[in-house]
């Protein structure tokens, strides 16, 4: 009989505990994700908010995994959080299904009452969160569906250590003293130097960039250095956009990957990565990813995102002394360079019982001094959201890296475009491109080329992408 009692206890006790877990904090419910250090920062900002406004907050801070599914399921139920993340891609769907509120009236009210003024956000970013539900146009319309949380960009970075070494060993001059710089002492200007013709930080052309990579691909004292080693899905947009191509047509109806400009940029990128001997081979990449090599100071040019700064700063300056630079432009005739912009926003559920409180919280999380201090000043997790803080930001030397202006440059001065995943109603059309991208790569280093050339691949994949885009467009028209 003792055994039966034990079994009975083993069943009853856990179930009682299970039923009792969690619940019952009042107030505005915010459901967002972040990495561990980000979550503790969010907690503190929320605490400060409650202190200053007296509004209670029930914060559910989770990690990234599974956030999307749980959020989606909850929006249709009474468990819908008041404040949650939404990116420019999803607000359209949320708006059409009426699960989020048009925040414009609340934002105006806040500004009028002397609270945080949403117009102070960096120019143009609020527009990413507009959506015209009548004409089904993103970026248009009067309604504002979410308050931006942050905006970040992904320019290139250089490793000063390697470049100086390259100059020292004479490689730099050997490879870059050509073309426009044929007569210049020492070859091409270094990445952090100004272009004498424009008196601004130099923007290399495709060809000049290749030369720079050749100059920085060498072996010295048994360490192998690589010119560049970029990650396709994040970096190739720069080449494609600079060459004048784009993923979708202006009206968003067609997939334009098989246009000559797109193919030109695409081919240039693949060539640079695979065929010019300036980068890790795909085989090498399988053993040590590009990112790891950069962190070990073996790559001269690599993308730097705002979120990367903290990690890169932690490496010793002897190994990785990095700075920011523009991505390449197509040729001398074209001054345009682009990199992609990523942004995330706070949306408010249409089931919210306290929408103006929710808006206050979101504004605070995004644009308050507290937020600026914790997210930008003490820890460089994101760019300053508030226009009023930009000058402070640029002048503050404790915020790294030194030439961080490039980040803002991308956002403010038209050098950034939204990542393709945000260009349409859903991103399956883009995923199709990425899923089979390996057809362009060499399988083993001994291969002469990949299965398909970039041009062949573009022609091959365009119909598949178009099919997905058409479905997305149909859904959007149907308001689903």
């Amino acid at each position, binding site marked *: 009989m003792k055994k039966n009692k034990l079994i009975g206890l083993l069943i009853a006790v856990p179930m009682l505990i299970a039923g009792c877990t969690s619940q019952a904090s009042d107030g505005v419910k915010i459901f967002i994700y972040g990495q561990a250090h980000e979550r503790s920062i969010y907690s503190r900002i929320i605490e400060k908010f409650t202190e200053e406004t007296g509004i209670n907050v029930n914060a559910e801070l989770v990690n990234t995994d599974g956030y999307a599914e749980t959020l989606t399921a909850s*929006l*249709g139920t009474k468990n819908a959080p008041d404040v949650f993340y939404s990116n420019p891609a999803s607000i359209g*769907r949320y708006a059409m*299904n*009426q699960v989020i509120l048009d925040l414009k009236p609340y934002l105006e009210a806040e500004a009028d009452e002397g609270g945080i003024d949403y117009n102070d956000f960096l120019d143009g970013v609020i527009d990413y969160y507009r959506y015209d539900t009548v004409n089904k146009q993103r970026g248009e319309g009067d309604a504002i569906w979410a308050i931006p949380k942050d905006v970040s960009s992904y320019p290139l970075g250089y490793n000063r250590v390697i470049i100086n070494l390259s100059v020292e060993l004479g490689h730099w001059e050997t490879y870059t003293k050509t073309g426009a710089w044929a007569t210049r002492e020492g070859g091409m200007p270094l990445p952090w130097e100004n272009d004498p013709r424009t008196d601004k930080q130099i923007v290399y052309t495709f060809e000049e960039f290749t030369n720079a990579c050749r100059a920085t691909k060498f072996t010295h004292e048994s360490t192998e250095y690589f010119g560049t080693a970029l990650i396709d899905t994040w970096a190739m947009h720069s080449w494609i956009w600079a060459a004048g191509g784009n993923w979708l047509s202006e009206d968003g109806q067609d997939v334009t990957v098989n246009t000559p400009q797109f193919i030109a940029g695409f081919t240039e990128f693949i060539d640079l990565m695979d065929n010019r001997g300036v980068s890790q081979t795909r*085989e090498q990449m399988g*053993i040590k990813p590009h990112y790891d090599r950069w962190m070990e100071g073996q790559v001269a040019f690599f993308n730097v995102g705002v979120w990367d700064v903290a990690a890169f700063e932690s490496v010793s300056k002897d190994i990785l002394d990095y700075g920011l630079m523009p991505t390449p432009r197509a040729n001398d005739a074209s001054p345009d360079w682009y990199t992609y912009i990523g942004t995330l926003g706070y949306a408010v559920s249409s089931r919210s019982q306290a929408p103006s409180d929710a808006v206050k919280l979101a504004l605070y999380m995004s644009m308050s001094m507290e937020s600026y201090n914790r997210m930008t000043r003490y820890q460089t997790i994101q760019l300053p959201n508030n226009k009023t803080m930009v000058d402070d930001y640029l002048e503050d030397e404790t915020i790294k890296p030194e030439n961080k202006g490039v980040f803002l440059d991308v956002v403010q001065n038209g050098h950034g475009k939204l990542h393709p995943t945000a260009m349409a109603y859903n991103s399956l059309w883009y995923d199709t491109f990425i899923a*089979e991208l390996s057809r362009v790569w060499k*399988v*083993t280093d001994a291969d002469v080329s990949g299965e398909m050339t970039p041009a062949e691949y573009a022609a091959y994949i365009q119909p598949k992408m178009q099919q997905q885009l058409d479905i997305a467009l149909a859904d959007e028209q149907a308001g689903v």
Partner: protein
Amino acid sequence: MASESLPTLNNMALTLKLKGKKNKPKHVTEHLIGYLFIAPVFIGIAFFVIYPFFYSLISTFRNWNGLVPLEFAPKVGWEMYQRVLTEPLFWQSFLNTVITLSGIPIGMVLSMGLALLLNRGLKFTGTFRVIFYIPVVSSITAIIILWRAMMNTQGPINDLLLLFHIGPINFLGEPGYARASLIGMLIWKGLGTSTLLYLAGLQGISDSYKEAAKLDGANDWQIFWRITFPLLKPTHFFLVVTGIIGGMQLYVEPELLLNGGPARATTTILIYLFERFGANRISEASVVAWVLGVFVFIVTAIQFYYNSRRERA
């Protein structure tokens, strides 16, 4: 079970305290008790599985994005089915998944062999059993990292092949080889479970059968083939049925090891389903699940049919 054990079991029955019960019509009570015993399972399934199941069935006839309850989703007839069934990627993922099923018979043969070895009462059998079970309980992350390290072009397996002047082979980068690597990993990972089940099955086979056969002059191979193997049929059947059911739902391993690649070579049905799910095209995901479910159901039903026919024979 051997009939010789009946006397022992009958003794057990006799020692039962017998209550004198009024005799209800036997067959009615019989049915009632039958239903009663399965009632909890039935209720649980009806509530937690069948209701959601029909919910999702209805969703296949609407364009549902999971954001709002189903009532608000527009009705679209067969459009969702059309979308899925006319997409080449769907059929490709179907094929990919079926290809991975080829690992099932291989795994069964290997684990049966292992179970036989472990059933001999050798020393350290217990330890071996635990060891063979380790891949089953190891974190999938560890297994993936391990296999990636082993299979890359400069890893140990390619080193071994180079000794025979083969390769190097990019196991994870080439579609054909990637599939083989995946299947290999799945077999290796599943050995522990099937060995355990074969062991349970083997220990249910009374030694007296084998003794009798030996006395009749049978050698080990004949004993195995004529007695042991057939008596393991319940386990064979279980493993094939569950292998197919589980195999068709393969998701984690190809996703983590290969990301469904290279070039969609290992995109299984569930990977395809989750992609649709993540794009909020829930109805399409439901269509995929339904087509998959019907397929597996038919295959399983066929297996049951043949199994019961053999049993009657």
